[in-house]
């Protein structure tokens, strides 16, 4: 779309104030078209950073919608506000010495048990994550499920903002994912050997030789390596 094209305008209400914006823009671009220079409320512009979460309601509807401004199309006659910060509780911990038990989770986040199963968190998540289901899984200690269900979490904090039990599900999931990761962490024998070989300088003489090589010589080696590269996955 170039500025010379004839563009169809529609009204939106940013924090209650009316602006006319072209149809077909994301909420983020609609904000910018309206003249907002974003500092808070804009990040990766690609749907993974959680900075631009926006609450919006269509005219004559009571329902609140929550979406990422950079990923959600602006719609005619919507009322919107960004919520770029949530003062959610984050417990400090030393992950390496933390016992990977349910007790650890509950002692760091006792409010976990205040979940009343209302599902508001799930309905608030712009990533369509089944938040309440992973909170339930956390309560019964099913951490693999917590990890799998929360993997797409962008830490925007909307689950915490709307939770009537005042949990911060995204921070609880963060803790559990790290504990799962640490439990899954093992150094396969071949990696162990690679690390000790590097430490013992096994590759150093060859790398020293390569550092002195011209591109043409390296290219011959490259061709040889490429001939045995195997499948891409």
């Amino acid at each position, binding site marked *: 779309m170039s*500025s010379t094209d004839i563009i169809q305008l529609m009204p939106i209400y940013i924090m209650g104030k009316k602006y006319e914006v072209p149809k077909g823009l994301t909420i983020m671009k609609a904000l910018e078209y309206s003249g907002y220079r974003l500092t808070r409320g804009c990040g990766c512009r690609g749907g993974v950073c959680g*900075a631009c979460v926006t609450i919006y309601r269509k005219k004559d509807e009571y329902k609140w919608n929550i979406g990422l401004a950079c990923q959600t199309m602006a719609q005619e006659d919507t009322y919107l506000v960004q919520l770029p910060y949530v003062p959610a509780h984050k417990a400090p*911990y030393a992950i390496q010495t933390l016992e990977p038990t349910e007790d650890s989770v509950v002692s760091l986040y006792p409010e976990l048990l205040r979940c009343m199963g209302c599902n508001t968190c799930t309905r608030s998540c712009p990533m369509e994550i089944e938040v309440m289901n992973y909170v339930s899984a956390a309560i019964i200690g099913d951490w693999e499920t917590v990890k799998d269900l929360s993997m797409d979490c962008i830490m925007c904090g909307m689950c915490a903002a709307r939770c009537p039990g005042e949990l911060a599900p995204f921070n609880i999931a963060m803790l559990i994912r790290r504990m799962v990761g640490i439990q899954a962490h093992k150094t396969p024998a071949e990696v162990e050997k690679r690390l000790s070989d590097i430490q013992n300088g096994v590759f150093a003489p060859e790398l020293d030789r390569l550092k002195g090589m*011209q591109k043409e010589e390296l290219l011959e080696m490259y061709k040889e390596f490429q001939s045995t590269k195997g499948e891409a*996955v």
Partner: protein
Amino acid sequence: MSYPQIMQLSIKNAEQTRSKRLNSSFPELTVDQKAKLLEQYHPDFNQKVKRKLHLGSNIGDPVPKELAVLIEAQSRLNLERIDLDQIDYKTDILVVGGGGAGLSAALTAKKTGANVLLATKLRMADSNTIMAEGGIGASTGREDSPVIHYVDTLIGGRGTNVPELVEALVTEAPFIVEWLSSMGVNFDRLPDGSYFTHRPGGHSRRRSHSIKDLTGLEIMRVLGDEVRNLGIDMLEFCPAVELILDDKGQCAGAVLQNLDTDTPVVVQAKTTILATGGMGRLHPLGFPTSNHYGATADGLVMGYRAGAKMIYAESVQFHPTGTAWPEQVLGLLISEAVRAQGAQVLNAEGNMFAASLETRDALAAAIIRECSDRGKSVQTPTGMIGTWLDTPLIDMIHGPGTFKHRFAGIYARFKEYGIDPVHEPILVYPTQHYQNGGLAINPFGETTIPNLYAAGEVSGGVHGQNRLGSNSLLDIFVFGRRAGKHAAEKVQSVSTGKLTLAHIRRYEAELREKGISSDVVSPMILPDYRFEKALTSIQHV
């Protein structure tokens, strides 16, 4: 919404050739063919889009025009407003930037017991790192070695990489994966618990370690959590605007700008680490970009003004597969892992024209050729052009459900616009992705200014003139940690003299003497997309 009618016709072409293409591939370019292709079609070789610098450590060197404009501009800092006797924060180490390089530098420095202050333009972890989909390269596999990784990286970089930096990169790589995993990063694993890896373009072995298509997000969540757990002091929404030197010519901190209150913040530091990322938001050559909102080359501008030397600042990486439709997400990256999994690149007739895993520079050039001189581009209703990335092949090759599982993020993004990449191809065109060059560093991360370090995309030399996929997630952690460690050790022996901003006055005086006047102020800090600028405009096609 799905694809408009005029694009549907071309999709039919792709569908018709699909079963025939399933078990075939396009031959890879020979070395000579590739060199010729790059010379004719890669933007790096187009001198018209470059401008030589008129002053500073790289005087006479060509850089992208958009960068030259910022380098040869007035300082954003109002020097009259700054009183260097009023120091707001005094710290051992100032880390500027909250991406992968900044956080790993801060964590490493903090572990030594030093005082660390982390200043970042937006929120902690807002960065290109968080957007990284593909993976992190490391020779953990039995059939791989740092030696092969070295050769691949050098050849990918057209032989122009700084050898000592590549040596550091490849020998530390397996330790980086180990380090991240030990902190609880959930790398994709095979059923036996070993790492799942794939092979991006230009690599000779499978060595990219991923977490679905959310590799950077998962890593940054964990690092950010760790930074908070360690209680590292943090100033968010406080980008650095200029470096402070002392009367001995050493770097001695920076002046930040609090974006919420629009007030300056003076930080005195014994050592300073620039980890400010790249320049995508300058939209070099008018290309769209895959970069974060804050990627405005601030570190290059500040560092250069203070006298640091740059290397390969002219060299910009265009990722071949940026989104070309829908235009709401124009420029957004489609991970190279999609091609590693079997997706082919097709012209409007539904035919292949390049091997899927050519290096990024070569495939980008091939796409530009296909869409320009060869006239076989797919046209969108809004005047954008592109080629198909045939994603439906992935489930055909690896079984139903593979795409959705492996590329959950990409799937969700397109679903929003009514496009189903499991059954429909994605339209792609090169997008500005990475600043290959930057501030010159040695293997400890030191720039040419004493006590000033650089790590990650703001630095240059590691990747030469073309970076291989999965080497930048690696670069940021190898050199972030190296800079953090060395800067922390150095603190013991640093004695800071009298703080000064005289270098900025001198720089501006030299601009005036040379008759260079500009109403631009820099660093840019954030791009301006207000009003008409919110509407997409592509200048390079």
